[in-house]
């Protein structure tokens, strides 16, 4: 049986960040990827917040990364059946490098990242699926991939949100609908100039637009739009539990079609050409959804460890994957130096995560899933906002009422107490 220092399952961001870091430390790492190339099975909304992970790489590392556009404009749109209210936020500091976040496309990005890892000395095998772990004396001692046994001192499972490797090894339970959402999106191609004109962007700069309200028809979730170089990523993220339970039932792809037909959205994507339709599951349980991080001879990183955070206005996962991959590699380096790959030796990984933004942010926002899981955010507030703005902007034949009175007409005593109650519930985040 061929044997490696480290076998990494999955060439996503966690796996590749780990492979790169290990290779730089002179540790032999084999990355096994089931797709034709790194990124072939990976999907993002998506944007990557780069600032939190810059510290883990050389300063010039990202210079040639295939980013799409830096996000310099943030738009939030609240939708009801009849209207939409948007807030557009631009900060002058967002306009200049170092940019804090970029839109990305995973097939391009992960392929580039894979090349960086390979360039540093990591080994990458594509088109090979890991089917099982090899156990020796109660410790993980390698993997079985494509019928072949590959030994390893330590296995780093970066096999994504479902982490079937962990499940098969009884290291985790199958996921539950209440802890996950599904994201599905279209890549819609448009000329560069058209994108910049439609979103009022300087050349090369990008926008991120989030949609909430009636588009999910009462389901937890929302819509998103990111500008790429020559395409838009337009999609939705919806709670799997709500897709199963909320009445009247509607099929996920129909929700997206109806969202696209809204005039506010149709105007943004008009004349675009569909290039791809993709979907991916997202861990949404936050802190309580964090899975096992390590065991004897094994570590988990990225989505496979449940490291992802939705706090409403921002949804983050990719930088958690990158950081946890790097920190897993550092923990492995320490275990390598001690020549001890037991759970006790690998437990330093948890400390490294706790000292990093990964577990700190997840801890800070540990109540977020609970607070956000409030149907009022998806129906009541967008409608209240829409109604008030409609009244303020409408002119009929009758004389117009005062502005304060117009607002008060829409806000009963019970509305105000309800808002205060939600605000009180939200204090934990």
């Amino acid at each position: 049986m061929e044997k490696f220092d480290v076998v990494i399952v999955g060439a996503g961001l966690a796996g590749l960040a780990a492979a790169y870091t290990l290779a730089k430390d002179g540790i032999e790492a084999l990355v096994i990827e089931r797709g034709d190339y790194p990124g072939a099975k990976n999907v993002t909304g998506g944007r990557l917040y780069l600032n939190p992970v810059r510290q883990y790489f050389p300063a010039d590392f990202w210079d040639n990364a295939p980013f799409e556009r830096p996000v310099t404009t943030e738009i939030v749109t609240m939708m009801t059946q009849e209207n939409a209210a948007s807030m557009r936020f631009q900060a002058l500091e967002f306009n200049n490098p170092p940019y804090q976040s970029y839109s990305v496309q995973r097939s391009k990005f992960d392929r580039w990242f894979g090349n960086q890892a390979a360039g540093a000395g990591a080994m990458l095998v594509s088109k090979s699926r890991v089917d099982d772990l090899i156990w020796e004396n109660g410790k993980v001692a390698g993997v079985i991939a494509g019928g072949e046994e590959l030994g390893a001192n330590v296995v780093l499972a970066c096999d994504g949100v479902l982490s079937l490797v962990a499940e098969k090894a009884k290291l985790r339970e199958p996921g539950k609908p209440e802890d996950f959402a599904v994201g599905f999106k279209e890549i819609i191609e448009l000329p560069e100039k058209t994108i910049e004109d439609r979103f009022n962007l300087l050349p090369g700069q990008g926008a991120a637009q989030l949609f909430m309200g009636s588009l999910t028809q009462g389901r937890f979730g929302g819509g998103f739009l990111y500008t790429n170089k020559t395409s838009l990523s337009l999609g939705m993220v919806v709670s799997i539990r709500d897709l199963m339970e909320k009445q009247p039932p509607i099929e996920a792809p129909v929700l997206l079609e109806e969202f696209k037909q809204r005039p506010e959205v149709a105007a943004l994507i008009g004349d675009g050409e569909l290039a791809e339709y993709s979907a991916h599951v997202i861990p949404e349980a936050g802190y309580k959804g964090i899975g096992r991080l390590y065991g004897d001879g094994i570590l988990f990183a990225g989505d496979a460890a449940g490291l992802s955070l939705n706090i409403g206005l921002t949804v983050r996962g990719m930088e958690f994957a990158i950081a946890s991959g790097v920190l897993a590699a550092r923990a492995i380096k320490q275990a390598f130096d001690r020549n001890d790959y037991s759970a006790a030796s690998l437990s330093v990984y948890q400390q490294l995560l706790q000292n990093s933004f990964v577990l700190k942010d997840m801890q800070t926002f540990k109540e977020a899933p609970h607070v956000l899981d409030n149907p009022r955010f998806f129906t009541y507030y967008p409608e209240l906002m829409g109604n008030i703005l409609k009244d303020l902007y409408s002119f009929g034949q009758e004389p117009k009422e005062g502005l304060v009175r117009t607002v008060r007409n829409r806000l009963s005593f019970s509305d105000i107490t309800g808002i205060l109650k939600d605000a009180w519930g939200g204090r934990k985040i």
Partner: protein
Amino acid sequence: MSRSISLKEKLGFNVFKHSAESHIRIIPGAEKNERLKLAVYVCPAGLYSLNENGDVTVTVDGCLECGTCRIACGPEILDWYYPDGGTGVQFRFG
């Protein structure tokens, strides 16, 4: 895209590599399971449908490998694994 296109047409834009084996199998006896019926609503690729006998059927052609159906239904109802290495959807954008 001013006109709405069908889901099948939409999936036609993706690159898929055929696998000899179907990677999703409804566990025999679970075809009428109420939970399985919900797969019809959750699958972003619309691969589940209810036939005239009230059985749920699945086709894996066009599967985006997201795993939503597996989370919705659980392994007691769906025997679900990723397709073989080098087969299935190969995203060009992602």
